């Protein structure tokens, strides 16, 4: 049933596929990010309680959602690498971790800049903020562990193990605003209920979320290609390509 997937485990195929997709993904991501952010910054009405400070939502929410989405992708790649020993999956884990780390940092920094005017403080040790900070440390842990062993294979395996174990943090982040008393507001967009945000503000937000998602894929393509080259540099196909 999944046999059609097999060629995509071959590094050479993935290298060329990523090379073809990358420019389109990067272009689409930049266009959507500009569209969503300019729309959100200049062409939506201010919030009735928060005034214009709420416009930070157009970066904060996409970065926060995709910091978790990127982690799920990394954990799936790590699981695939550990169980089926697919090399491309293993390299994807290390290629994707810095993207997730940057997204998490953006979510935290924009959250601080939003928290100062609205809550009166840059930071509180409450459940949502702390669990998101732990997510950043998980990403940094994966990056650090992969480089901490003299044998690259061992490092990659240990990093994958951490990535899989760290999945436990995702539901904690998601439900932290319901399980604990917190300064952080609940979700404005959910899958099952009508969004508690006006459509005029929702559309640019959804576009920005899509932009962050596509940007993640574009960056993954770019970084995975480098990883494939580094790991396959002694193979004939790489030599034939880079030699001329």
């Amino acid at each position, binding site marked *: 049933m999944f046999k059609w997937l097999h060629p995509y485990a071959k590094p050479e195929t993935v290298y060329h596929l990523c090379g073809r997709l990358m420019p389109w993904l990067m272009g689409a991501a930049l266009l959507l990010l500009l569209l969503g952010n300019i729309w959100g910054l200049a062409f939506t009405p*201010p919030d009735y309680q928060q005034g214009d*400070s709420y416009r930070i939502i157009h970066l904060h929410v996409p970065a926060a959602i995709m910091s978790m989405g990127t982690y799920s992708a990394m954990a799936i790649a790590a699981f695939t690498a550990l169980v089926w020993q697919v090399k491309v999956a293993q390299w994807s884990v290390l290629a994707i971790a810095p993207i997730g780390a940057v997204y998490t940092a953006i979510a935290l920094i*924009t959250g601080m800049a939003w928290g100062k005017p609205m809550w009166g403080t840059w930071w509180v040790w409450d459940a949502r903020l702390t669990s998101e900070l732990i997510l950043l440390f998980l990403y940094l842990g994966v990056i650090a562990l992969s480089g901490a062993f003299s044998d690259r294979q061992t490092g990659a395996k240990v990093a994958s193990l951490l990535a899989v174990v760290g999945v436990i943090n995702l539901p904690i982040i998601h439900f932290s605003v319901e399980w604990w008393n917190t300064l952080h507001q609940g979700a404005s967009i959910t899958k099952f209920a009508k969004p508690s945000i006006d459509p005029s503000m929702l559309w640019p937000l959804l576009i920005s979320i899509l932009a962050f998602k596509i940007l993640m894929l574009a960056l993954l393509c770019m970084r995975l290609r480098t990883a494939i080259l580094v790991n396959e540099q002694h193979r004939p196909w790489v030599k034939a390509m880079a030699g001329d």
Partner: protein
Amino acid sequence: MYFQSWAEFWAMGGYGLFVWLSFGSSYIMLAALVWYSQYQHKQFKRQLSAKLAREKRLQQYQEQTD
């Protein structure tokens, strides 16, 4: 546009510092990640072709001296 003037747009209803701090730092981080990923790729490609060219020269030299 919702704002009446550019000055009003930059002021963001008094929250300018926080809004532009958010957008500025986020764009800088994203741009740095994109730039660095691209730089790493190009850098490694350069190194690799230099290494392969060196190996080729070495091989040619050995063939000449034999």
